[in-house]
């Protein structure tokens, strides 16, 4: 697809998403906002997956972002998004940098297991230290405002906030993937020794990916905290990380838009699965995941590009 065509379709998608609240009912708008916010976390997973690294602990940054918002709102009475969101990104990115230094030595299944262990450490800390994290009850997030203004319809404000930040995250992701370090990540997946022979550093690329991945996942978590209005330790549980990897493969790793397509598809499938088979919605999701793996292992995104490529 040519560059202009990509730009035009991005603008078209943004316009469609921007006018959606005029036509659709509130719950669908909420679901899309939730899906876009979680899509940022999935993009974080995808950035690492391009280097063949499975982050089975992405919920760590997701929870850090969400709890940053939770703490500020709950302990300091700060519901201001323009304070909390940048802080969530910075804290997540700093922690991602520190943990990235450790994780950059690991590949394959050990990367997955170590990131899983790190996220479970956060989970146990959140559960056990009741005074500081609210234990399993979690924290409620109240008093949302943007630039000091509290709206009568906060969910609509939040929707547009999510939409703008999603666009920003997509831009950052696309710029990173098009940068030399971004291309280097693809090379990490295939052959690391050759990278070193070329004079580049694989661990440098992994560290950079990890910091960006952590930062945008923290942002996604912070947005989800505002949307849902509550944070709990389950955000950091390993099943939550599993869902993000699920959505990453569902969407595909071929494009920065794929995580958001996958995330919207996932939220709607989950929503309808819960509605039509309340006792077997996990089963439905599992079967769907198996279908994706066997039939469309490159994800839904390649389905789109393939359909578009056919007429020619």
């Amino acid at each position, binding site marked *: 697809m040519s560059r202009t065509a990509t730009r035009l379709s991005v603008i078209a998608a943004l316009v469609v998403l921007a006018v959606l609240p005029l036509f659709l009912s509130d719950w669908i708008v909420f679901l899309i906002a939730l899906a876009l916010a979680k899509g940022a976390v999935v993009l974080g997973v995808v950035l690492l997956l391009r280097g063949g690294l*499975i982050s089975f602990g992405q919920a760590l940054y997701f929870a850090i972002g969400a709890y940053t918002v939770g703490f500020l709102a709950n302990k300091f009475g700060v519901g201001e998004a323009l304070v909390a969101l940048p802080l969530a990104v910075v804290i997540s990115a700093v922690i991602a940098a520190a943990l990235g230094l450790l994780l950059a030595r690991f590949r394959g*299944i050990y990367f997955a297991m170590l990131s*899983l262990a790190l996220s479970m450490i956060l989970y*146990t800390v959140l559960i056990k230290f009741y005074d500081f994290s609210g234990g399993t009850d979690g924290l409620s997030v109240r008093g949302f405002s943007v630039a000091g203004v509290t709206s009568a319809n906060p969910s609509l404000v939040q929707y547009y906030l999510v939409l703008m930040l999603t666009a920003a995250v997509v831009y950052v992701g696309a710029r990173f993937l098009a940068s030399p370090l971004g291309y280097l990540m693809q090379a990490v997946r295939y*052959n690391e020794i050759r990278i070193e022979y070329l004079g580049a550093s694989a661990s440098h690329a992994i560290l950079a990916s990890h910091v960006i991945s952590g930062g945008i996942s923290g942002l996604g978590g912070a947005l989800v905290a505002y949307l849902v209005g509550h944070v709990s330790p389950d955000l950091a549980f390993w099943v939550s990380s599993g869902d993000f990897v699920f959505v990453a493969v569902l969407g595909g790793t071929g494009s920065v838009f794929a995580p958001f397509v996958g995330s919207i598809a996932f939220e709607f499938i989950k929503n309808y699965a819960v509605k039509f088979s309340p006792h077997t919605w996990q089963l439905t999701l599992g079967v769907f995941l198996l279908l994706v*793996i*066997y039939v469309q292992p490159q994800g839904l995104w390649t389905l789109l590009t393939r359909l578009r490529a056919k007429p020619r």
Partner: protein
Amino acid sequence: MNLLPIILIDGITFASWLFLVSAGITFIFGVLRILNVAHGSLYAIGAYLGATLILQFAGQNQQSWITLPLLLLAAIVVGLTIGPLIERLLLRRVYGEDEVIGLLTTFALFLILEDVVRLIWGVDPYLAEGPYRMFGRVRLAGIAFAGYPFLLTIVAILVGLLLWIVIHRTSFGRQVTCVINDREIAGALGINVPRIDLMAFALGTFLAALGGALTAPMMSVEPGMGVSVIVLAFAVVGIGGLGSIGGAALGCIIVGIARAVAVQLFPEIDLFVIYALMVAVLLWRPQGLFGVVELRKI
């Protein structure tokens, strides 16, 4: 009060339980190169089937020796039915694919099995603690301990010995070793590799179910019991080195003792200690204690 015997005995019985749960994961990974996320669900199915058999056949107070063969039977049934079914239908298609695909296939299986368990057994807890009461209490170093966990220790040692014998002293074991080292050459030598895969997964499933079935008398069997077990088992096999059964055994003892120390001295951080240990060991030895360093290809 002297804490040392409590910590040692608590640690060793917990380590035995951990070994029963995690030996299957590391064995399956060794042969098939798939980290089985659904292992916890197989453990839960073993527990449910064991509890059901006890409630059906062990009489009112459940305190008879028949309960132990029943628990073993539950594990064998799960190993012989669900194990081969999963391997044939689901896993066979993803051998040799990216690691993320293997991981996600078993994650999908985990989601499916969690609901299947709920559909079959409902959401009410099952209580089959007869065997636990049957073993009564044992006095050691002047302290009374529940007797049943010592059964787990004996079974764990037996399972470890049997696995060692099977792998090192039988034809099946030699074929497995051959497949682990090189699937292609193993096939060229006339080893039926798909059959070895099937048997290895069935054996791993049996071990998961055995762990679950033997745990059933110690707790109320209820939905979600496999979800937290799986990450504990990951921690153990990560510490020991994936694919190494001896490593898993050592990992269990380290984790068991560390947790017992934490439970007695700093009860807030009992779970934290386990994951922190895993991180510490992996930072020190990225392949785990007994893992094999993978050679990098040029």
